């Protein structure tokens, strides 16, 4: 489904991704762990075409198309979804209007009819319930005055509504207490299916107790430096990221 080969990317002239390779097949859950500043968020932004993030080399194919050719909104309509580490607040636009526009834009791309107002509302209510957000959130501005945890749950709620094929979750666990973490994990788990894949970016192993990954990758200094099964997350939990420095020396 997703194949990343030798990806290099610059931000403001600095090289952040330095030759990243990764393959994600349908239905798989890949966790990406790594120290702060490793380039984890950068990977998410590059995959969703954020302007300041410039790809300088490498290839990314998604469902047999060249993902790098597509604009931000085209990627989203093709089925890529990024749950942000820090979602923005947009007070001028209501959540309802925003969701309706986005759901219908994505549906149109898939050749589906726009939802009727009643059907939309029904689905929005269900999705809210699933992530434990009160219904009046729909009437508020996008993320306006939401707490950190509410913003993260709102991202998952959008993911549920948009039914993407590739979900990239950027630290959807950070700043959450254990109950909120379970809500987020349940939301994600409910969406797992044979044709939907996940890249779960996290700094801590904790989230992976609830969302069981098929593969775990360690991203450091712009590259995947180690890949393995769920046991790799436990290793990180036990020993932190200090061993990376030895690894870099070894590979230098």
């Amino acid at each position, binding site marked *: 489904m997703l194949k990343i080969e030798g990806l290099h990317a610059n931000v403001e002239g600095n090289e952040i991704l330095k030759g990243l390779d990764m393959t994600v097949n349908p239905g798989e859950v890949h966790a990406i762990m790594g120290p702060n500043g490793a380039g984890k968020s950068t990977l998410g932004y590059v995959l969703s075409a954020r302007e300041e993030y410039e790809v300088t080399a490498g290839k990314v194919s998604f469902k047999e198309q060249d993902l790098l050719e597509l604009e931000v909104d085209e990627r989203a*309509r093709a089925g890529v979804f990024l749950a942000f580490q820090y979602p923005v607040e947009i007070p001028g636009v209501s959540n309802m209007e925003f969701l309706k526009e986005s759901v219908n*834009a*994505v549906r149109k791309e898939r050749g589906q009819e726009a939802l009727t107002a009643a059907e939309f509302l029904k689905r929005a209510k269900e999705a809210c319930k699933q992530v434990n957000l009160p219904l009046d959130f729909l009437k508020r501005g996008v993320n306006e005055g939401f707490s950190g945890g509410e913003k993260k749950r709102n991202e998952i709620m959008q993911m549920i509504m948009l039914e993407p094929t590739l979900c990239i979750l950027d630290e959807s666990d950070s700043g959450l207490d254990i109950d909120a973490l379970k809500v987020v994990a349940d939301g994600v788990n409910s969406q797992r299916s044979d044709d939907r894949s996940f890249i779960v970016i996290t700094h801590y192993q904790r989230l992976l107790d609830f969302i069981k990954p098929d593969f775990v990758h360690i991203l450091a200094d712009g590259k995947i430096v180690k890949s393995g099964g769920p046991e790799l997350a436990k290793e990180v939990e036990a020993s932190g990221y200090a061993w990376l420095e030895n690894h870099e020396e070894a590979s230098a």
Partner: protein
Amino acid sequence: MSQWLASVIDRANSVDDWLRPVRQEAVAQLKQTAWPTRRTEAWRYTSLHALKDLTLAEPTAAPASTEAPAITDLNSLDIVFVDGVPTTDIGSLNTPEGVRIYALDNASEEAQTQAKKVMNQAKNASHLFGLVNDALAQQGVVIDVADGAIVEQPIRVVNYVSAGVESHNRVLVKLGAKAQATIIEHGAGQGNSMNTAFAEYLVGDEAKLEHYRFALHGADAIHIGGSHFKLGEASRLNSTIVGYGSQVSRIDTDIVHAAEHADAKMNCIYLLAPSEHFDLHSLIEHAEPNGTTEQNARGIVGDKGRAVFSGRILIHRDAQKTLAELHNRNLLLSRGAQVSTKPALEIYADDVQCAHGATIAEIEEDDLYYLQTRGISREQALVMLNFGFIQELVKQMPNKALSAWLEPLLRERFKTMEPA
């Protein structure tokens, strides 16, 4: 003196009609008036360079239409002027009960009497182009609404201008005590025209005026005009001003609370395409106690566009218990877009409640990106992010046929204003 102004004086001197005394008075004043420069406060941000030596003699295109632009479900009584000349037979209009409408040109004794009651009663006497209009306007309309008449049918004065033509016209409205009416000044046209259009309204005691002024001219137009109101006791004004920018576009909206307990609400919207200019000057005067004013001006300015908002609320010493609010909000679509905004309250009474403010916003790329990551096109995201605060004012227009007509027009225009 500018070559154009000299020609205004010549042309005014050659008109011999019943308004000759008014024209002569204006000419005398114009001769004393220096051509505005950047140092002339009222024209500081509006260059009149394009007008200084203007000569528009012959039309360069056929007039677009002689009929009023259709607005679904408005069912208005339309009076149409094309390049200043009426194409409606004003004398044989089927006017609603309590309404009399006269042409300014070839005015009967009765029409002259009605016109004189209103003319120069509300307009700013020293406005350069008000004087030009006094000197040259031969065409216009006088609308007289009898005391107590409740007029349901909106009355619309359409003023088309076409390329290569200079025109001047006037609207004079008197609303009797306890009368109610809706008046629409609808300006439109394409090409390099020059037009002045001034309207004066005397609103009687306890009368209610619903007013609209649409200045929807093309990018090459020079349009200068004003809507001026004098409010009687406990009268109510609800006015909406909508302007596109153009080469030179200047509208003055002045309101005088001439008696107690009057209530004025005015919303102003301006949308400037790239490189366009729009200047809104507003002076609202509270001369008497217990009046209320609420003014909201909101605009969007495209790349290299220049908007000017000068809003003043002046509260005289006797105007105790005045409530006044004045807000101006602007969205600049690029760093090359400019707005000069000066909302001002001048208060000489001690027991009043007032608020005023101006804000300027720019597009946040992060917000655009966020909406796009959810599948929304950049174009649609821009509309969602930036059109909302304009839409809010459109929705407040009391006439739903007008708001239903205007909203898609403004939305379409906005879509062509994408930042550079």
